[in-house]
């Protein structure tokens, strides 16, 4: 069964360092999402791609976060510099198309900033 792959599963980094997360969506899925989930809260959308284009990054803290999906397939989310408040679970999800509403989630990357 096809799944969304994310790596690493866990990441510990010192504040002010750079960190990057990788996501490989289900093959053929044009829409890719990055969500952040702070402990005790629900996931919150950071950025949404349609193929290689960003369609929604209104909640992405652009002074320190960046996301790319250069070939419209896999994606990287970067934080530089990391802050203590960035400690969270970062979830990637994909869906077949913008009009198809089921999103499939990856296992997530648990980031701890110390």
């Amino acid at each position, binding site marked *: 069964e096809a799944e969304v792959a994310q790596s690493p599963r866990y990441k510990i980094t010192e504040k002010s360092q750079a960190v990057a997360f990788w996501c490989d969506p289900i093959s053929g899925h044009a*829409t890719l*999402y990055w969500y952040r989930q702070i402990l005790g809260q629900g996931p919150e*959308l950071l950025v949404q791609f349609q193929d290689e284009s960003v*369609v929604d990054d209104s909640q992405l803290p652009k002074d320190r976060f960046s996301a790319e999906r250069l070939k419209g397939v896999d994606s990287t989310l970067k934080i530089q510099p990391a802050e203590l408040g960035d400690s969270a679970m970062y*979830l990637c999800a994909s869906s077949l198309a913008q009009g198809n509403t089921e999103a499939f*989630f990856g*296992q*997530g990357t648990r980031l701890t900033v110390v």
Partner: protein
Amino acid sequence: AQRVTQPEKLLSVFKGAPVELKCNYSYSGSPELFWYVQYSRQRLQLLLRHISRESIKGFTADLNKGETSFHLKKPFAQEEDSAMYYCALSLTGGGNKLTFGTGTQLKVEL
């Protein structure tokens, strides 16, 4: 802005008892509503959506536009239902962006 509220952080029921996980939303348009579930050590996955009007694993949810609610119900809880449940909303024509509630941890006790 749209908002999803799940008032209970934790719901504990005995096996065989009815379950109702509450979800209320605020949005002036016509949203699509979903329930996602996360079992222990597994990824977040779709349980059901209101447009399908189907029962999955014995769970049902009815969209009540008058009360802006989408409560999840099951007549008889099973031990394997223990999980974290998230209610989510997507705006019609909103590109599938999901707005999640804070989740309810369901614990089914023997």
